[in-house]
């Protein structure tokens, strides 16, 4: 089991993600010696993206610019809860030939994170079957770490 204080928080621009972050900040703000990585994973470009004349670099740039604003907001939330700025890192990356949950788990393994924190959307059974649930996949497939699913 990896060190639980080494924490990976998966974030995006949804209210669910922000709620999860606020809940988490409230707890982590009371703890010491944590290392937090704010991670945003985005999917590969949709079909037709390239035929609009854009490149993969354009796509990455669009996604990174968008991620920069909500990652900045996420850092603010953590700092306001009393978490030391120096212990917060951030990362964004495309899920390259992988699902978003697989990409999160790859980074968890690589960075030896002991805790993953993710928001829960609350999807229907049919929606989960067809479109998937990142939180469910993380719970099912994670190893050497604890997954917090914040609903």
């Amino acid at each position, binding site marked *: 089991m990896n060190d639980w204080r080494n924490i990976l928080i998966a974030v995006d621009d949804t209210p669910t993600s922000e709620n999860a972050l606020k809940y988490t900040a409230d707890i982590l703000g009371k703890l010491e010696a944590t290392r937090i990585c704010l991670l945003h994973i985005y*999917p590969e470009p949709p079909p037709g993206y390239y035929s609009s004349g854009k490149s993969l670099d354009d796509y990455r740039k669009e996604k990174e610019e968008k991620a920069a604003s909500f990652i900045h907001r996420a850092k603010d939330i953590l700092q306001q809860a009393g978490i030391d700025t120096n212990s917060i890192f951030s990362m964004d990356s495309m899920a390259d030939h992988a699902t978003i949950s697989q990409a999160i788990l790859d980074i968890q393994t690589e960075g030896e994170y002991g805790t993953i924190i993710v928001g829960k959307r609350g999807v229907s059974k*049919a929606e989960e079957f067809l479109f998937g649930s990142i939180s469910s996949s993380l719970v099912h497939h994670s190893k050497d770490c604890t997954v917090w699913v914040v609903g």
Partner: protein
Amino acid sequence: MTAGIDSLPPTIRERLREHRVTRSMRRASRIFFDTTDFTSIDYGDIIFVDDCYFLVTGYTKEGRFGVDDQTKPWVPRVEDLATGNKQILKLVFHETFDITMGQFTISYYRNPEKEARVLELTQGLPRFMQGRAVLDEKGNLVRILDIINGRRLDKFIYKSGANHKEYFHQELPAILKQFLECVQAISLLHRNGFRHGDIRRDHIFVERKTDLFRWIDFDYDYYMPEKPFAVDLYELGNLLMYLVVRGNFHPREIMADPDMGEKILNTIEPGDYALLSKNRIVNLQKIFPYIPSELNNIFLHFSLGTDVFYDTADEIAQDLEAALQKLT
């Protein structure tokens, strides 16, 4: 670019002149080196790719969106004028459209490159249609496909005229044995990162001479980044159920059958219906009590009542293999 028949090699020109297709034509054939505008290529024209002169002898048809037998002008039937081989060409046609599954809409698109890669991956494998992909003069990806001489699986299962009980006990085990290998074939695609993309009962062809089941048509694709294979798995389930009961059962079919009627319909509970197809019953054991639970349990993975989904085609294959033991 097109050219007239004067530019053809003499032997090819002679074969074209004597061909039944051109004998009845009132205009001269044209030779197309560029297939971009496939709608301008007509019956009796020649498509030149991969150093072969392919004479267009007809077009394939397919039922789609509730309309039977729509001609597909981007999929001409052809004959190689040098060898006489009859084949099918698939030309690049970029099309996107939405398909509704339950309350959800999924955007589909044609992906010629994926089909080309699947053809390459499955070269020599009997469960897949065979062919090769080449580029025309303008770089369009033309797929040259071998014709499977046979019939659609959903027609094949009715060939004996047996009633359902006879079909179930005498014919189904052999059908499901082959279908199991078809599921394993889809698993091979998934393990290599490809979807079939359009699993349906007329996309398995049964070879006339051998009765071998073979998958066809790999160019559909869809964008579902977190569950890339879910639609394929759902459609495998649908196809399996269709094979077992030779049809789809909604309340109206049950009420229309004098042997079933309200007596059966009253036993159907909300969880017995399909996860993504409104009013279709998947707890088929309630309709056909001789379906063993091992087989019915596979169906229930696709029901509204399920708490467990299949994640892989291999999981379906494993359960089907176990269920087959109960049938044979």
